[in-house]
């Protein structure tokens, strides 16, 4: 809590990375002694072009050890019933922590879910999680995939009893938390700390916006940006590229799934077929697209918006303001938008060794 910097242009994610690396070097030395434990708060910095955090991260401020523990847990199959499915199973770093190439992520016993794994990035800036907003807490959200019978099919209580038998975990929990306990609360907290630090804000687009070296967009990308701003940015708002709302974008419902979307959580018919507007950061890496992963390419997504939108219950009014439903776009315009979307790819994020668990 000591280190909480206000948004500042002078700080970059590189500096955070350097800081983390330095810390991890120090922590290696610490491991040599059983009697000293240095657990530093991490340097969490809001990127200059981002809105404020939506989660109160001061409640569970990331520390070096909490982050390390969260990372270890994120990559650990013990969180599933039979030890085979870790968080990283469906959230792979190289695909901006999505499940590349899978429309429905397959989980335990090779069972398939009904939704496409969403990206895990910039989590502290989101107010609600999952396509239907089943959780509004970064600390609590891991409960959902852990208990889902087709994802990890485990319980918090069981995981804790497994972790208590592992000396490495017992030590890490003791270092990471003041009460030193291996508990489900601390486990969720550690995962929350890891996810808090997973910030993607160093794409070419970000550098362009922040006027940093390497931040140039070519004429097609700039044209795409203009088109994006006039056609897409009402929902894919701010530099997070989402307004955090739930909307029906007119996808024809899949009768085999009958996924009611937001209504599943709220129970309100007015929320039928509404799904969370996803961030478009790293979107070139997160195929397939939509809540059910029905589209394999960005071209297909834009084709859908130009001539595939269907008038189902609660269709968003923004998609009904032209003579035909959806967003009129010609092929040149679509290509420009796709070129722009590709500038949102953040290589530093997907290659950052801090988010990859190495043992």
């Amino acid at each position, binding site marked *: 809590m000591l280190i909480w910097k206000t948004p500042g242009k002078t700080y970059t994610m590189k500096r955070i990375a350097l800081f983390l690396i330095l810390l991890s070097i120090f922590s290696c030395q610490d491991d*040599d*002694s*059983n*009697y*000293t434990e240095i657990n530093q708060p991490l340097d969490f910095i809001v990127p200059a072009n981002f809105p404020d955090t939506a989660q*109160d991260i001061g*409640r*569970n401020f990331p520390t070096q050890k909490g982050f390390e523990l969260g990372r270890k847990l994120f990559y650990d199959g013990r969180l599933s019933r039979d030890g085979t499915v870790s968080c990283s199973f469906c959230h792979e770093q190289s695909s901006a922590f999505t499940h590349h190439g899978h429309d429905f992520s397959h989980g335990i016993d090779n069972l398939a879910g009904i939704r496409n794994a969403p990206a895990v990035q910039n989590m502290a800036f989101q107010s*609600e999680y999952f396509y239907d*907003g*089943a*959780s*509004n*807490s970064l*600390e*609590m*959200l891991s*409960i*959902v995939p*852990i*208990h*889902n019978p087709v994802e990890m099919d485990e*319980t*918090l*209580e069981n995981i804790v009893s497994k972790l208590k038998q592992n000396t490495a975990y017992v030590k890490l929990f003791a270092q990471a938390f003041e009460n030193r306990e291996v*508990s*489900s*609360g*601390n486990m*969720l*907290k550690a995962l*929350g700390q890891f996810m808090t630090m997973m910030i993607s804000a160093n794409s070419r687009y970000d550098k362009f916006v922040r006027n940093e070296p390497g931040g140039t967009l070519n004429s097609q990308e700039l044209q795409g940006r203009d088109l994006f701003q006039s056609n897409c940015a009402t929902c894919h708002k701010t530099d997070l590229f989402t307004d955090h709302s739930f909307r029906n974008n007119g996808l024809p419902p899949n009768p085999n799934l*009958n996924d009611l979307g*937001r209504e*599943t*959580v*709220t*129970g*309100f*018919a007015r*929320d039928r077929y509404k799904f969370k507007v996803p961030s478009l950061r790293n979107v070139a890496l997160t195929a397939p697209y939509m809540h059910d992963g029905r589209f394999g390419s960005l071209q297909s997504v834009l084709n859908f918006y130009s001539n595939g939108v269907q008038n189902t219950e609660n269709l968003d009014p923004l998609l009904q303001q032209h003579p035909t439903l959806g967003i009129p776009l010609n092929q040149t315009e679509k290509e420009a938008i796709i070129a722009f979307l590709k500038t949102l790819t953040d290589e530093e994020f997907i290659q950052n060794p801090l988010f990859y668990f190495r043992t």
Partner: protein
Amino acid sequence: MKSYLKNIAVCIAFTLFITSCSNDDDSKPVEGTFGDVELFFDNGVSGDALTLGNSYTNSNGETLKLQRFNYIVSNFVLIKEDGSQFTYPKDDSYFIISEEAGTFTVHLENVPVGDYKKIKFGIGVDQQRYLQGETAQQSFWDLAAANNMTWTWSTGYRFINFEGTFTAAGGDGVSRNFMVHQGSNTATDNYIEVTLNLPTTARVRTEEMPNIHLKSDANVILDGDNKIALRLNMNPAGTAASIMGGENLISIAENTKKMFTVDHVHNGAGTHH
């Protein structure tokens, strides 16, 4: 270097050990200032006793056989005649009443002595507490999970877990399962608080523990000011009724404002029942 650090660590640990021992001796309340209060929740249905496995018929024309009736009560406040309030420490102010587990009491400790005329408490878990995350409420979360009071497809608590089977008058006579899970979600906050007058003053003294005897009426959940028919809330397959979201939860929150009444208060030392 290592042994030096080791020595420091040992010294610190030893000091902490000593300090923690002496703290225990100091933590007792000052004599004559604090007492205890006990609340007893007597579950019933429209004035009759509630027994799991027994049936009752409500004004919606449905006969319910209850198998589970658990609920969370929280954030207790005791109010004196002059309006001054004692708010029980929030960290310790969450309790589960469970018919199946036979848990019916809420025991409050270290309550300032005085004469109390009203009590206030919440049904469920307030959003503020919930958003503090599981860590702030570890022991309560564990208790809630053990009592079927946590959601897993979403994150949060069930405030009331009311389950059993039912048959509808004029229907096919088949008995079907029902599940009513009251709670908040990311769209609606269904936590409510009730304030109840005590028919007799609850006298809290160091040697006197009042026992506040409340009656809870499970019938009001579906058959209170708002009427909720289970037969109109069937799942798509028509095999069971399930109420876990939407307007129903708002109606139930409203209904449960009248779920509790204080029947009587026992003053004097010790417990009763």
